[in-house]
């Protein structure tokens, strides 16, 4: 018996096999963690489109998943750009998976100031209480507001994602020791 199979090498603590098992069990189609450039958003988006085609997703469902991915990642880019954070802090964590019932799930997360995180969680909670007609009215109202300055902008995109989703959006905020937090959003399409 080869002992290296039983005992993973100490110098390489990343167990790719169990990571892969986890991805497969949870039907993860695509995941990304790290600094996210504009071109990377496009390239990953392109891969996502191809996966959805291969998965025989209905064109409308593919548009919904792709659109949700674009809005959430561009929101993160706008936010971290406005904060002028380092490349590493400006990263995003994105996971796109498929539920057992066939629905797609788009999750996206990023570092955020605690205060901003609380505000966006409050907005997500507010959106969760609105039906489709109320979301549409809010969306049209937001669309007609003057362009927000660089510090905000999450409003319209989030409302759009809430309209696209088939279930209320779920947001979580994990406070971090440095006073910031990790914000994550889950949209079921």
């Amino acid at each position, binding site marked *: 018996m080869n002992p290296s199979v039983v005992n993973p090498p100490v110098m390489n603590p990343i167990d790719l096999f169990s990571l892969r098992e986890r991805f497969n069990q949870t039907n993860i189609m695509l995941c990304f963690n790290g600094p996210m450039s504009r071109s990377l958003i496009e390239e990953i988006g392109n891969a996502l489109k191809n996966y959805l085609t291969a998965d025989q997703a209905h064109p409308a469902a593919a548009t919904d998943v792709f659109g949700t991915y674009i809005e959430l990642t561009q929101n993160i880019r706008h936010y971290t750009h406005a904060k002028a954070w380092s490349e590493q802090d400006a990263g995003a964590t994105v996971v796109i998976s498929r539920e057992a019932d066939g629905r797609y799930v788009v999750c996206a997360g990023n570092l955020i100031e605690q205060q901003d995180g609380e505000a966006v969680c409050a907005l997500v909670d507010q959106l969760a209480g609105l039906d489709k007609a109320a979301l549409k009215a809010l969306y*049209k109202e937001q669309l*007609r507001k003057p*362009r927000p300055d660089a510090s905000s902008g999450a409003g319209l995109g989030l409302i759009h994602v809430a309209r696209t989703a088939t279930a209320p959006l779920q947001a979580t905020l994990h406070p971090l020791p440095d006073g910031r937090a990790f914000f994550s959003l889950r949209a079921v399409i």
Partner: protein
Amino acid sequence: MQSFETTGTQSTPTIRANWEEGTLFMEGDSYPENSYEQFRPVFDWIEAFLNTAGRPLLLDLHLLYLNTSSIKAMMDIFDRLESAHAAGQAVSVRWSYDRRNERVGELAEEFREDCSFPFAIEPSA
């Protein structure tokens, strides 16, 4: 002002503005991070056409997916057409799409709700 043409990319549409014909053609996806830069020349061309050409203007659209930033820019364009229409100018929109993707039709329909000028939404076979 004259005609211009911009070749599309993965995230930006192909745009052809024809001054003689009075047509503005746009085709493809639009999801740049900053749609304002992309749509500025389009908006300027429409503004110049409406102010000086004295002829009907047709927007011939084959747009597919738009991010919210592009939707906002398109709304500005339709608002400008609406004010031209209110002033008695002949403006119209024709938005063609593949009927297999009803999201495009729904997107066009939401724009049309706020417009009173001729706005045709044409699903292809």
